[in-house]
C-alpha cells in the first residue's frame, strides 16, 4: 500500500497511511504515516470498541494537518494492553495462525464472509 500511497500523492492527492508495522512502513516511506503499535490489522482500533476507534481516527486526522515534510511518521500514544505486552513476542511469529476463524485456503487465498462469529 505504501507504493500506492506514493503514486496517489504524486498524482496530486495528499495521503495519510495508518500503519501497525513500523519497519515495513519506514522502509517503503509513504508521504505521511501514523503508527499504532497494535497487532497487525488493528491499526484503527480494537474490535467492538468504537470510542477507541474514533479517538485513533481523530488523532490520525489531526496528524494529517500537522505533517510538514515528506516521509514523516508519527507514533500515536496507544498501548494495546498496559499490563501485558506478550502479544509482541507472538504476532506474526513462528506458528502464528493467520486465519483465526476459518475455512480451507486455496493457493494461499481464502474467500470469507464476515460476521462468522455471530453465525
Amino acid at each position, binding site marked *: 500500500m505504501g507504493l500506492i500511497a506514493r503514486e496517489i500523492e504524486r498524482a496530486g492527492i495528499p495521503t495519510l497511511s495508518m500503519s501497525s508495522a513500523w*519497519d515495513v512502513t519506514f522502509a517503503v516511506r509513504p508521504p505521511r504515516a501514523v503508527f499504532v503499535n497494535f497487532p*497487525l490489522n488493528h491499526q*484503527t482500533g480494537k474490535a467492538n470498541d468504537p470510542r477507541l476507534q474514533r479517538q485513533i481516527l481523530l488523532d490520525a486526522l489531526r496528524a494529517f494537518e500537522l505533517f510538514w515534510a515528506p516521509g514523516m511518521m508519527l507514533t500515536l500514544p496507544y498501548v494495546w494492553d498496559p499490563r501485558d505486552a506478550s502479544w509482541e513476542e507472538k504476532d*506474526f511469529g513462528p506458528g502464528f495462525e493467520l*486465519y483465526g476463524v476459518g475455512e480451507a485456503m486455496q493457493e494461499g487465498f481464502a474467500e470469507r464472509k464476515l460476521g462468522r462469529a455471530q453465525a
Partner: protein
Amino acid sequence: MPIAYIQRTRERYADYPPYKWAVNTEAPWTPLPKPIKECRLALVSSGGFYLKSQPPFEKDDTSYRAIPKDTDLKELRIYHHGYRDADADLDPNCVFPLDRLRELEAAGVLGALVDPAITFVINYSHRKEIQERAPKIVAELKAAKADAALLVPV
C-alpha cells in the same frame, strides 16, 4: 516496542524466495489544500473487502472494488492471502473504519466522506502495483473529487 515484521516475515517464509521490500529514502509530497473539516476524504483499504454482489478478487489481480459508503459492514466479505481476520470478522472497523468515518462526517470532523470507499488486495509485484493498480485508484479518487485519502494497509 515496534515489532520487526520484516524479520519475522523472512523467518515465516524461509522456504520461499525472499520478498523484496520496497525501500525508499524520500517521498513525494502534495500539501493538504485545506483543513480536514473542509476536505472530501477517501478511505482506501488493502484488506480485500468486497460485497457479495461483486466478483471476489483473484490471485495476482490489480483490480479494486468500490464499496458504497452507506454499506452495512455486515455485508462485506474478505478475499485475501493472509491476515488474522478474527477481529475484522467481529468488527471490520478495527481495520476498515467505515462506520467511524461516517460518524465523523456527520459530526463535521470531515468535510465529506468520499463515496465510494476503495478496497483491493496487494500484489507482490511492485511493478504491477505502481503501473497497473495505482492509476486505476488515482482515476477513481479524481472522479470522486477526493481532496485527501486515508490509507489503511493490510
